[in-house]
């Protein structure tokens, strides 16, 4: 019982102090509060390219090193959304995934004294604290620049700065639905963007590629995303959203600027997917271990071009567990030294491998995106954006920390 009160005290301390703390106070406040339980903590944030985890500096402590996601216990906790327990001479370490709801923001390292019983109760507490800190990071980040800076390995272009501020978190999950996206090049994105809304039983999602490069394309993308949201939030359906983008782009740009896009809506009770394809690469339907087909319906002109026809929605009935992979042409058209394109085949093969390996949806995307970057010879010629949507309870569960997956089977002894 005494332990429970101590943990409650830690959580209360964090919340009390969070009201008025500055971005740089978050990690030291956690350290101080956890220190009272004899536990040392270090908070790591993931960078925009999702390659390394960067420790938040704390006064009076030697700086820790950044840890590579692909080759560290910290990275394992991050990528698989699982707590990792490591025994060392200095004591037992736990690496707990830190999500903001379901979006992976980093990990927390907890070091406990040697001999501490590494039981499920302890793991649950670490994951709960990491979850709380994940939410607090999200609410604290806008207060200043510090937490933004900790996640950057280099300065952003103006276009990238603008775009990232408009975008939704990488990953959002509900009970039986996951939507996740990834964008490259992180510090120099131009016209690619995505959006989603998971309200009710009919989540909507959009992937978008505005023509042009850098800031000019970014401006068109921003106008398009805002038009989609404003219309959706006023109750407009996909077709109205597309029309709103047509009008907004024509009004704001005199140079025939357009954007290609997929706008889609999935009914989680029936599995019926409705979509519009405004000149964009078609969504790929993946089932079990393979590509079922590309969804070639719902075609209309790119957004921003006066389409006077009423486009019929593309429709497809999904089966539970089905995945939809959406991408911009920068993914499949990335060229290697020989000029060979990354291509749809390679994209689908890799997506399947990662699915069979049981990776969480955001991790599949992270790896796909890095595969495109590796394939690419020289600096990317275009933005490359991927979005993966899955209609599945188990996929949804895989995006949250293990002890939160079954809150009814609480690890606490009763």
């Amino acid at each position, binding site marked *: 019982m005494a332990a429970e009160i101590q943990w409650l005290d830690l959580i209360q301390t964090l919340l009390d102090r969070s009201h008025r703390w500055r971005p740089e106070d978050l990690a030291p406040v956690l350290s101080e509060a956890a220190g009272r339980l004899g536990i040392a903590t270090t908070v790591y944030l993931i960078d925009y390219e999702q390659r390394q985890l960067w420790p938040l500096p704390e006064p009076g402590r030697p700086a820790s090193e950044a840890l590579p996601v692909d080759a560290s216990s910290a990275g394992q906790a991050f990528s698989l959304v699982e707590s990792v327990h490591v025994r060392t001479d200095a004591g037992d370490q736990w690496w707990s995934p830190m999500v903001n709801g379901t979006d992976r923001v980093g990990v927390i390292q907890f070091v406990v004294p040697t001999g501490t019983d590494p039981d499920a109760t302890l793991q649950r507490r670490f994951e709960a604290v990491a979850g709380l800190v994940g939410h607090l990071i999200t609410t604290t980040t806008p207060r200043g620049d510090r937490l933004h800076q900790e996640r950057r390995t280099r300065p952003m272009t103006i276009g990238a700065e603008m775009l990232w501020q408009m975008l939704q978190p990488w990953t959002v999950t509900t009970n039986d639905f996951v939507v996740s996206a990834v964008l490259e090049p992180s510090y120099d994105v131009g016209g690619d963007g995505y959006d989603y809304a998971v309200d009710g039983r009919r989540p909507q999602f959009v992937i978008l590629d505005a*023509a042009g490069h850098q800031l000019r394309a970014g401006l068109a993308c921003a106008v398009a995303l805002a038009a989609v949201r404003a219309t959706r939030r006023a109750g407009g359906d996909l077709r109205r959203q597309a029309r709103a983008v047509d009008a907004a782009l024509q009004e704001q740009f005199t140079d025939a*600027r357009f954007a290609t896009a997929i706008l889609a809506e999935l009914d989680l009770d029936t599995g019926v997917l409705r979509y519009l*394809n405004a000149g964009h690469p078609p969504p790929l339907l993946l089932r079990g271990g393979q590509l079922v087909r590309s969804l070639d319906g719902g075609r209309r002109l790119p957004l921003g071009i006066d389409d006077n026809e009423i486009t019929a929605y593309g429709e497809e009935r999904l089966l539970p567990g089905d995945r939809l992979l959406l991408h911009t042409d920068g993914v499949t058209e990335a060229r290697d030294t020989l000029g060979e394109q990354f291509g749809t085949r390679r994209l689908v093969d890799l997506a399947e491998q990662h699915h069979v390996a049981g990776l969480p949806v955001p991790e599949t995307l992270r790896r796909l995106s890095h595969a495109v970057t590796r394939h690419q010879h020289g600096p990317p010629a275009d933005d490359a954006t991927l979005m993966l949507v899955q209609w599945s309870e188990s996929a949804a569960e895989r995006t949250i920390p293990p002890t939160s997956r079954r809150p009814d089977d609480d690890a606490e002894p009763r």
Partner: protein
Amino acid sequence: MTPETLTVDSRDFADHGRLVTAVGEIDHDTAGRLRAVIDEALADGRVHVVLDVAGVTFCDSGGLNLFVDAHRRTAARNGWFRLAAVSGSVRAVVDATNLDRYLAIYSDVETALDGD
């Protein structure tokens, strides 16, 4: 991008026509020169513009942007813009973006030059 990646020539036909021939790659970096040639045609009152893309080996959204722009501006002057000798990579990118429904597309230059 070297400047040699796109060459543009033009000649007049009929009363109000100008045939523009592009050879090479049309992308965001090179589209500006092609745009300038089309601007010139419109400034000269040449509102029937045919763009011969037989020699175009690559076209990205910068090129598509230009086609849409040319279509709109000629139409606003009661003229027209036609893409001629469309095949290969231009065909692929126009089809992929559904712009085949918007742009006037001709498989060869002679047909594009004929008629109103």
